[in-house]
């Protein structure tokens, strides 16, 4: 079985440009998470979908970040007007039932560099 697939693996944008990151969760998993990884902060929760419905976006910077899950096979994280502080590795993860005690399966991440 394929794991969580994230594209692109690397993206470089200029300040003020838009970036869209894609995630394909493991087939059959009902929960999808987005995390942001930086050296200073480690892994920070951004948002969570269960059965495609947005459940918790408490970690999302409200003004420029948005996430969607239009169908069970993919989710997108969009960052508008990117800023240098948005530079990070964005990790998508899925789990079978989203209970929290189950295993998270992470993708290899999308490394965003904002110049």
């Amino acid at each position, binding site marked *: 079985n394929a794991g969580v697939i994230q594209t692109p693996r690397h993206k470089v944008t200029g300040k003020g440009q838009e970036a869209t990151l894609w995630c394909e969760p493991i087939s059959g998993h009902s929960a999808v998470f987005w995390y942001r990884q930086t050296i200073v902060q480690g*892994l920070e929760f951004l948002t969570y979908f269960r059965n495609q419905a947005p459940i918790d976006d408490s970690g999302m910077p409200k003004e420029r970040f948005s996430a969607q899950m239009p169908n069970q096979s993919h989710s997108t994280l969009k960052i508008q007007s990117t800023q240098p502080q948005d530079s990070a590795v964005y990790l998508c993860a899925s789990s079978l039932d989203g209970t929290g005690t189950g295993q998270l399966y992470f993708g290899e991440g999308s490394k965003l560099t904002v110049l």
Partner: protein
Amino acid sequence: GDSVTQTEGLVTLTKGLPVMLNCTYQTTYSPFLFWYVQHLNEAPKLLLKSSTDNKRTEHQGFYATLHKSSSSFHLQKSSVQLSDSALYFCALDMGYKLTFGTGTSLLVDP
């Protein structure tokens, strides 16, 4: 609020020596703790997990014991190998999402 603390940012050891990576947590709920490992340019993967007080859990030579009395879930291994060089995250279940510590980089020298 709920939180996880990993005090070491970098641990450097010689192959064959024992290691302990510290993890403490704060939560008002019944704790469920995890260790995830991330090798360079790879996805984080679950290493082990536990919610049982004072019971040792083991996987791939690593082990940890949840101690609710001290709010700790330290990761240990008796003899590290070169392949253990990686970033290790401790995480706390918060109902459906995990709160992660900042991570500890383990570097094993020959």
